[in-house]
C-alpha cells in the first residue's frame, strides 16, 4: 500500500467529517496565528526601539570636561580633545561639542517665540552648537546644500544647517539655501539641510517626541562669540559637554579607556586632589544593551504564552483523534478483516492527524500574516511581515504536534483484535 493511496484515504475520511475537523483545526489555527502575531509584534517593537536609538546615535561617548580657570568663551579643552581624537581616527568617527542654546530664531515674519510648545508638529527647533563632525556623531546626512566645514568653525563663519523639520517649519517648500535667519538678532546664512534622522512616517502616537530629532538648527560652536557680541543673555555659558562617536562598540571601550588617561592629565582629577578641573565619561551603550535584553525577554514571554495555546491546540487534536478512533473502531475492524496490517492503520491515522495539523498550520499562517499586518499597522504604524524562520518554525511545530498527538490514538487503534473491533457499534 503506497503513500499516495494512504493520503487519499486520509483526505476522504477528513472530508467526511468537515465540521468537526474544522473545529479541531481551529485550535491549531488560533495557536499558530497567536505565536506568529505576538512574536512578530514583539520583534517589531524591539526593532523600532533600536532604530530610534540608532537614529539618536549609537556608540556615542558623552564627555564632560572643564577647567575651573576657563573663561566663558575658552574652547581650549575642546580643541585639545578634537586634536587628540583625530589621532585615533581608526577608532573615532567624529567629535563635537554637545551644546544647545535658547536663542530666538527669526526668519521673515516667523519667530520661534510665537510657535506652539504644546504640539510636536509646531514645536520650535532646538539650536545646537557643534563642530564640523556634529553630523557624523549624530547620524545626520546632508540632503541639500553642504554641511559645516572645519573652515566654517575656525573662521567663525555665521552659517547654519537645518534639520528637515526645522527647514519645513520656517521655509515650508521654499528653498532655504542662501537665506538669512537671525538668532537673537545675529544673522546666519543657511548653507544646507539635513535628511530626516528619524523616519517620521513610522512613528506611533506614543513616539511623537522623536520628531524633535529632525527639528534642530546647527551652528558652528564658535558662533557662540558672535551670539555673545550680539548681547544675548539667553546663550548658556561655555561648552563643557562633548560627544565622541566611536566606529563600533569595541572601539567605544578602547576610546573610553584612552580618554580617561587623556582627560586626567588635561583637566586633572578631583579624586586625586590635583583639582584644577573635572571630567566625566559616560556611554549609553550599556543602556541600549539592557533595553535590548528587556525587549528580547518580552519577546520570549509573549512567544511562550502563545506556545501554550499551540500546545492546547495539540491536545485538542489528540482528544479528537481518540474520539475518532473509538468511533471508528468498527471501521478499523473491517480494514483489518480485509487485510490491513497494523502499520497501515497507524500510518492512516497519523496522516489524518498530520493533514489536520498541516491544513490548520497553513490557515494559521495565513491568519497570522493577516493579523500581523493589521496589528503592526494599527499599533506600530509600520508594515511588518513575520520572519521566514518563525513561519517555517511554527509550521513544523504544528505538524510535529500532529505526529506526537496523533501517534497515541493511532497505536491504540492498530492494536485492536479484528474480532473485537468488529463487535463495536
Amino acid at each position: 500500500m503506497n503513500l499516495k493511496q494512504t493520503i487519499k484515504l486520509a483526505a476522504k475520511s477528513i472530508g467526511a467529517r468537515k465540521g468537526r475537523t474544522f473545529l479541531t483545526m481551529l485550535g491549531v489555527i488560533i495557536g499558530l496565528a497567536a505565536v506568529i502575531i505576538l512574536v512578530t509584534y514583539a520583534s517589531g517593537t524591539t526593532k523600532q526601539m533600536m532604530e530610534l536609538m540608532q537614529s539618536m546615535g549609537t556608540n556615542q561617548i558623552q564627555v564632560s570636561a572643564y577647567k575651573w580657570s576657563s573663561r566663558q568663551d575658552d574652547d581650549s579643552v575642546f580643541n585639545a580633545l578634537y586634536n587628540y581624537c583625530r589621532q585615533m581616527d581608526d577608532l573615532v568617527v567624529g567629535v563635537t561639542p554637545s551644546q544647545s542654546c535658547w536663542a530666538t530664531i527669526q526668519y521673515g515674519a516667523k519667530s520661534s517665540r510665537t510657535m506652539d510648545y504644546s504640539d510636536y508638529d509646531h514645536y520650535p527647533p532646538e539650536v545646537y552648537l557643534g563642530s564640523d563632525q556634529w553630523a557624523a556623531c549624530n547620524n545626520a546626512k546632508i540632503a541639500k546644500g553642504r554641511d559645516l566645514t572645519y573652515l566654517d568653525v575656525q573662521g567663525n563663519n555665521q552659517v547654519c544647517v537645518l534639520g528637515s523639520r526645522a527647514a519645513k517649519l520656517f521655509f515650508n517648500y521654499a528653498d532655504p539655501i542662501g537665506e538669512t535667519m537671525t538668532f537673537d538678532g545675529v544673522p546666519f546664512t543657511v548653507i544646507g539641510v539635513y535628511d530626516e534622522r528619524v523616519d517620521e512616517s513610522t512613528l506611533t502616537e506614543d513616539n511623537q517626541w522623536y520628531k524633535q530629532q529632525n527639528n534642530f538648527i546647527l551652528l558652528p560652536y564658535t558662533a557662540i562669540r558672535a551670539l555673545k557680541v550680539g548681547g544675548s543673555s539667553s546663550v548658556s555659558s561655555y561648552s563643557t559637554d562633548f560627544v565622541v562617536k566611536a566606529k563600533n562598540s569595541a572601539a567605544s571601550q578602547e576610546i573610553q579607556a584612552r580618554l580617561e588617561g587623556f582627560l586626567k592629565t588635561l583637566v586633572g582629577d578631583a579624586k586625586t586632589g590635583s583639582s584644577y578641573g573635572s571630567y566625566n565619561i559616560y556611554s549609553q551603550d550599556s543602556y541600549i544593551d539592557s533595553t535590548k535584553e528587556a525587549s528580547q525577554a518580552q519577546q520570549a514571554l509573549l512567544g511562550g504564552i502563545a506556545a501554550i495555546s499551540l500546545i492546547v491546540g495539540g491536545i485538542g487534536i489528540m482528544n479528537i483523534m481518540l474520539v475518532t478512533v473509538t468511533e471508528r473502531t468498527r471501521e478499523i475492524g473491517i480494514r483489518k478483516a480485509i487485510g490491513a496490517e497494523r502499520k497501515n492503520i497507524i500510518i492512516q491515522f497519523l496522516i489524518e492527524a498530520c493533514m489536520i495539523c498541516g491544513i490548520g498550520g497553513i490557515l494559521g499562517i495565513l491568519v497570522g500574516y493577516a493579523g500581523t499586518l493589521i496589528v503592526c499597522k494599527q499599533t506600530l504604524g509600520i508594515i511588518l511581515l513575520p520572519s521566514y524562520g518563525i513561519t517555517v518554525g511554527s509550521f513544523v511545530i504544528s505538524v510535529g504536534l500532529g505526529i506526537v498527538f496523533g501517534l497515541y490514538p493511532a497505536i491504540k487503534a492498530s492494536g485492536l483484535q479484528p474480532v473485537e473491533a468488529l463487535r463495536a457499534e
Partner: protein
Amino acid sequence: MLIDIKDVYKIYNEGEEREVRALNGVSLNIDRGEFVAVVGQSGSGKSTLMNILGCLDIPTYGDYHLDGQDVTDLTDKQLSHVRNKQIGFIFQGFNLIPALSAYENVELPLIYQGVKASIRRERVQDALERVSLWDRREHKPTEMSGGQQQRVAIARAIATHPPIILADEPTGALDSKTGKHVLDILRRLYKEGTTVILITHDNSIAATAPRVIRISDGQIMADAPQEVDWL
C-alpha cells in the same frame, strides 16, 4: 486439504466461575471447492468458529492448518496477509466503510495487497459487474438498499480472487427475495471453484447446501452431505 482444524477450543475467562466454552473441541476438514453450511442456534459457537476459520480470532487451544500452513504460529502481520489473500468475508451487517463509495470499498483490499492501479481498476470493475452494480460504483453505502450493500460486500470479498469465501449470515438482514439473489451469487462462485462456507441459523438455507455441519454448545453434532436441486 484446504481447511484442517483439530481439537479447537475457544474458552473465555478460563478457570473462572464465569468460564464460557464457545468452542469445545471442534475438529473439521474442508476440501478445496466445497460448499459447506454451518448451522446452529445463536450462542451455539458458529460465529466463533467462523472468526477462527477467518483468522479474525485465535483459538485458545488446538491446531488450525490453512492450505497446509499452521495459522496459530503466524504473526499479526502474516495473519493480515492471510485474511487479505486467502479469505473473502461477507458479513451479516455488510461492514462497508461509510465514507467510501462502492468502488472504493471494493478497491480497498486490493490497495492493501499492493496491486497496481491499472490492474486494480480491472478487478474492481470485474467484481462489481459480477454483482451487477458497476453502474452504481460511485454511490456511498448509505445511498444503497441493503441488498445492494450486501452485493458490494460480495464484490469486495471476491475482488482479490480468494480461494475461500466466508459468509456469516449473509442474508440475515435482507428480505427473502434479495436474500435469494445473494445466495444465487454464492452458488455461482461455488460452481466456478471457490470454496464457500456459509454460516446461518436458518435451516431452510442450510437445506440448500451440499454439505451441512450442525453445531450446538460449541461442538459439532452432525456433518453430512446432502442432495440439492440446484446442482
